[in-house]
């Protein structure tokens, strides 16, 4: 009984949340709350992207700010060039995907930590170049003039819809044959190759999809803020944030980045206000604690709770309810 109910929940729950988010602005929300929700949605999109590469495929990247920043800058340039903002998002995505090949083509040919380290380097190099690039104003930043009145709700709805889209894409990928191939690569690249998975191409494409999502997030951010500078969108901190969201929520799970993004969005808001100097210190400690104590993040914690209560109420336990609720355990093949 339990599995059926659980399956029904997993089918209905996303739609309920999505509808609630769409209807939320009808109630009297302050524009500050809407801004917070918008920012959270943007972070979640980037986090979903990172999770595809870092979580499902097991290739950690420390340089997602590159795609975030490129998406932001290309979108900004195109909006200032008189294009529609939605067309500009597409431009940002295209450039981010191109950049993703630049990083992944040399590094994914090899096994080992090359990709992870190269991503640190690519982040550094891009920020240096952007700091010195004249057409975008270099380090002093770039202002966006959109030829429309500022409509916060439009920003909000675009972010929510795109977030739902990113989540749907991530879920589709994970449950497809391609997603199975990715999981196989994460667990054992040689075994995956032996059953006919082309690990190089699979990693390349999933990295491109992830870069596209992150570029989109950057574009959304740029359009909302109307001012971007390399020290913000290309900062190493941005990469850290994008990495932390899925890690907090539950690395390698579909819903992990969403949970992580919500927690991160709220915590970041409070932390920056109250402890502007030590918030990265706290994030570092959280990262250590998660890796050592609960590698599956919040999802793992929830799974434990659910398992605990389900066991108490029902004794049959022919099938683990949590497997249906949360998907297969991220514990299997957590390693590179």
């Amino acid at each position, binding site marked *: 009984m339990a599995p059926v109910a659980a399956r029904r929940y997993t089918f209905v729950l996303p739609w309920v949340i999505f509808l609630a988010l769409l209807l939320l602005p009808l109630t009297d929300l302050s524009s500050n709350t809407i801004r917070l929700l918008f920012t959270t949605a943007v972070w979640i999109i980037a986090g979903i992207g990172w999770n595809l590469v*870092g979580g499902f495929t*097991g290739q*950690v990247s*420390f340089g997602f700010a590159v795609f975030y920043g490129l998406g932001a800058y290309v979108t900004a340039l195109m909006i200032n060039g008189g294009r529609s903002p939605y067309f500009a998002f597409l431009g940002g995505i295209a450039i981010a995907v191109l950049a993703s090949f630049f990083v992944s083509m*040399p*590094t994914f*040919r*090899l*096994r*080992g*930590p*090359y990709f*992870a*380290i*190269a991503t*640190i*380097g*690519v982040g*550094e*190099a891009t920020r*240096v*170049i952007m*700091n*010195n690039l004249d057409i975008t104003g270099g380090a002093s930043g770039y202002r966006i003039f959109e030829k429309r009145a500022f409509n916060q709700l439009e920003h909000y709805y675009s972010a929510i819809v795109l977030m739902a889209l990113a989540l749907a894409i991530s879920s589709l990928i994970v449950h497809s044959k391609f997603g199975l191939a990715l999981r196989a690569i994460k667990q054992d690249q040689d075994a995956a190759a032996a059953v006919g998975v082309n690990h190089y191409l699979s990693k390349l494409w999933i990295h491109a999809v992830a870069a596209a999502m992150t570029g989109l997030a950057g574009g959304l951010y740029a359009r909302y803020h109307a001012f971007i500078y390399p020290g913000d969108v290309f900062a*190493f901190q941005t990469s*850290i944030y994008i990495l932390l969201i899925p*890690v907090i929520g539950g*690395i390698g799970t579909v819903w992990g980045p969403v949970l992580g993004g919500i927690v991160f969005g709220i915590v970041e808001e409070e932390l920056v206000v109250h402890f502007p*100097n*030590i918030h*990265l*210190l706290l*994030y*570092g*400690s*959280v*990262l*250590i604690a*998660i*890796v*050592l104590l609960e*590698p599956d993040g919040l999802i793992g914690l929830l799974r434990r709770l659910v398992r605990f209560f389900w066991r108490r109420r029902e004794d049959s336990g022919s099938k683990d309810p949590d497997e249906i609720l949360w998907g297969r355990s991220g514990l299997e093949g*957590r*390693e*590179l």
Partner: protein
Amino acid sequence: MTASDYLDLIIKSLLLAGIYAAMAVGMTVIYGVMKIVNLAHAGFLMMGAYFAFVLFNRFHIDPVLGAILALPAFFLFGMAMHWLLVRWLPKSDTPTLSSLLLMFGVWLVLQNLGYMIFGSEDSSILTPRTLASVQLGDISIPLVSLIVFIAAVVSLVLLQIIFNRSWFGRSMRSLIQNPYAAKIVGVDDERTARLTFGLGTAFAGFAGALLAMLYSFNADFGRPFLLRSFVIIVLGGLESVSGVAIGALVLALLETFSVQVLPASYQPAISFALLVVVLIIMPKGIAGLLQRKLKVT
């Protein structure tokens, strides 16, 4: 450019290569034995710099002596770090997701502790020696770079002796070559790993203290050097100490001479570009390339 200009640049790169090698070697031994990419290396370098800085400012200890004192201090610190955090990581032949994330978290914590304690302004160690130089014909060599170079080379030679002659060095080498066979013949991998992590950290602290004599530093001091270290050990073939020396020399030469062509602000991009080129052309490093050439002929 005249011939003496070239000679000047070559000497500069040589001096730079010494400190680069000392900096990268800590990362190499840790990677070789434990297959962990020590991202916290950047944090250890920063700590080494501040270690020498505090000793110099508070207790007026000469920075060279400070760097030497950093060796035992960071050795103990590294062993504690391994005992506290690193040993709980799952063991594997390849770097794991959790090890990357853990060391990254450690780095974040160290870096921001640095910001908390020392603020975000740049500090530097200024001694009467800082601006002195040695004249060699037409060429003047900064005295500090020379001292740093000598210290780095001596430490590398000592490391090579430990590596080749001591019981600990032998168990380290056996773990690098084949961890399973090493365990079968009775190498205590846990203990060797702890000592290796201490050794790697000690070298990071030592190199950080030496670097602090050359450059000004802040809490984010280690980041540009992290990528350089990695490029060097990739060039050197990831696991050999002598490879590191060659890798350091290549990177130093490239960086020094590129200033002639590229604006200095693009320098951080150089190590990345070198990494990409190396990964495409010779994924096993210079040593691997030579081996392949020898096999063909």
